[in-house]
């Protein structure tokens, strides 16, 4: 039997955790022994009722305090249980962290020094790095996260195949509503035959219903330029001749203008004490082809991800992604289902697609350290995709719809490089056993500068 580093890491953790738990008692036992139970200020009865006497903010000068206040669920004068206050404090901290506007966030209650029935809550945030950078091999993006006193963001992507500007207002008028405006131009291969250029805009209006559930509506307009020109990159085009069009089987060129209206529900339940997480969305969209109403259609997508952490060193994920698409949907698809089924061959175009992904990843492997400083975390992962698709070519009755299962197996490694900047790299490869030539590599790279 070969013992891997993961095996030893697991063994060490299994041995250390009980020791640490035992050791952690010594200090607490001493404190209890020295102080006794007489002092009511030291009581930690979770059911005890307390009043929030004051909330104090320690914020960078560049941050709008009213915006931060709008994100804090604890209200001055509120009367609630100690456990309830702890929950609100944890929720407020997560909401502040989720804005990604700060380098560090702390929300905590001070111990009740004078009156055990009162609490003072402190909200602390330190300024983060104002810019975010990201890149793909041929796209480079930069985002500025502190527009107008930190509560708005704008990002810009400049690349060979994607040019995009996104404006994001995470709390309209300090309300739960938010706004996103996305202007983009994307050039993408279509069925490996030619490139499709899509110019579009998305206006998203959303509301954060609860801490973990968001509801939003999209209105998008997209202009698809079919290959009357062969776009290599913007500004340079080469016309296709009639003979070339005929050889490629492409109809006479035209421009399609499409409007879509969509509604989506996102929800997220983070890891809790049971080490289970649930994340998902359901969305529906109505696409209207302004130039050809006959091709208007409705699509629906759903994504459900169940995460389970049975041990500190292992994460299991089961994910189901399903979508209903019309025949031959052209152009820019922003849904996960699109990117997932492209990983499996011979299924495009499709009407209905359902992908089940099972994934396991190891964590808490011994990190790579240099001169005593932790510089690289390594998380290997493996996955298996099982895809079922129902294809319905034009003119064929639903009774004749084809159904089949495709599989795709893969694995890779997730690297977190903790240098001066946080750098995240995903490298991997996948293979589809049913199709020997469908071996492919994938990669992802991103950078945090704060």
């Amino acid at each position: 039997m070969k013992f891997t580093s993961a095996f030893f890491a697991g063994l060490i953790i299994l041995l250390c955790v009980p020791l640490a738990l035992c050791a952690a008692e010594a200090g607490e036992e001493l404190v209890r022994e020295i102080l006794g139970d007489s002092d009511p200020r030291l009581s930690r009865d979770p059911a005890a009722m307390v009043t929030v006497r004051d909330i104090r903010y320690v914020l960078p000068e560049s941050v709008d305090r009213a915006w931060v206040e709008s994100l804090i669920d604890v209200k001055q004068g509120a009367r609630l249980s100690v456990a309830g206050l702890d929950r609100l404090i944890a929720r407020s901290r997560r909401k502040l962290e989720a804005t990604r506007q700060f380098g560090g966030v702390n929300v905590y209650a001070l111990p009740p020094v004078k009156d055990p029935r009162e609490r003072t809550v402190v909200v602390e945030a330190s300024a983060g790095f104002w810019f975010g950078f990201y890149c793909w091999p041929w796209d480079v993006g930069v985002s500025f996260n502190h527009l107008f006193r930190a509560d708005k963001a704008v990002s810009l992507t400049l690349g060979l195949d994607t040019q995009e500007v996104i404006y994001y207002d995470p709390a309209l008028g300090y309300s739960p509503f938010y706004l996103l405006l996305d202007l983009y131009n994307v050039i993408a291969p279509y069925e490996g035959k030619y490139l499709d250029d899509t110019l579009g805009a998305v206006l998203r209006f959303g509301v954060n219903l609860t801490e973990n559930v968001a509801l939003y509506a999209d209105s998008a307009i997209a202009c698809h330029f079919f290959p009357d020109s062969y776009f290599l990159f913007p500004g340079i085009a080469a016309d296709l001749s009639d003979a070339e069009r005929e050889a490629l089987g492409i109809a006479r060129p035209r421009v399609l203008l499409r409007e879509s209206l969509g509604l989506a529900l996102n929800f997220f339940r983070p890891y809790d004490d049971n080490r289970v997480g649930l994340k998902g969305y359901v969305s529906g969209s109505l696409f209207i082809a302004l130039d050809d109403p006959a091709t208007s259609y409705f699509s629906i997508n759903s994504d459900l991800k169940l995460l389970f952490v049975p041990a500190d060193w292992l994460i299991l994920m089961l994910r189901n992604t399903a979508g209903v698409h019309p025949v031959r949907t052209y152009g820019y698809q922003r849904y996960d289902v699109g990117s997932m089924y492209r990983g499996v061959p011979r299924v495009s175009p499709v009407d209905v697609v359902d992908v089940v992904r099972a994934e396991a990843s190891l964590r808490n492997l011994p990190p790579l350290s240099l001169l005593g400083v932790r510089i690289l975390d390594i998380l290997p992962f493996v996955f298996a995709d099982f895809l079922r698709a129902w294809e319905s070519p034009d003119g064929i009755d639903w009774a004749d719809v084809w159904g089949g299962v495709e599989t795709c197996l893969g694995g890779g490694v997730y690297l977190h490089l903790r240098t001066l900047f946080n750098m995240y790299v995903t490298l991997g490869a996948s293979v589809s056993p049913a199709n020997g030539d469908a071996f492919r590599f994938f990669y992802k790279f991103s950078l945090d500068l704060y």
Partner: protein
Amino acid sequence: MKLLLFVPFLLLGAAGPLGAEGNGDLERLQGEAARLEAALAEAPGDHDLLLAAGRIQYDLGAFFGASSGREAAARLEAAYLIDRDPVTKAFLGAAYAYAAGSAGDYLARLDLARRAMRCADEAAAERPDDPLVRLLRAEGSYFLPDMFERSRTADADLEYLFARYQADRQCFAGLFDPALVFYVKARMSVKERLMDQAYRYALAGRKIAADDFVKRRLAEFLKGFEE
């Protein structure tokens, strides 16, 4: 607003003149440091003098923010070169850590932190059962930036000291006041924003403190919680 001033002051490791008693300690330490410097001018190679001067400079920085830590490190480096003793090395580690926490320059901070961790870990490896070495490593961990993730090391050291004290209340006799362990734990708790825990450990420490200097440090620490 007293507490809000107090929290960053604790995180910086600078105690500052909070009261007449604190000022008295500061002046006493400064006077002692001046006396040792004068003695060192006459005997620059004296190991004991160098060690004492380094420890005083470290206390001035760690408790009062009245020294950058580099003065302490310079004295302790010289002392360590004369006698490669693990306790001196542990003091040197703590001095480097304090200097790293107060250094403005990022690269200098990284370099000092690296030295601090190496000294503290090597000293603890040489003398794992020495309470002073373990206490100094925990103190040093407090000053190091969060990115080095030393809070677990400090917690392990402090729990080791608590377990020793629980088994034998005289185990630190002649080395340091046991309340100092509670004080370091309380400061670590503030760093992690566990305010209830910080308050309880500081109260417990104040209750058992015998040494006047430690008593005053704990009293000043607890003042921060009183509005």
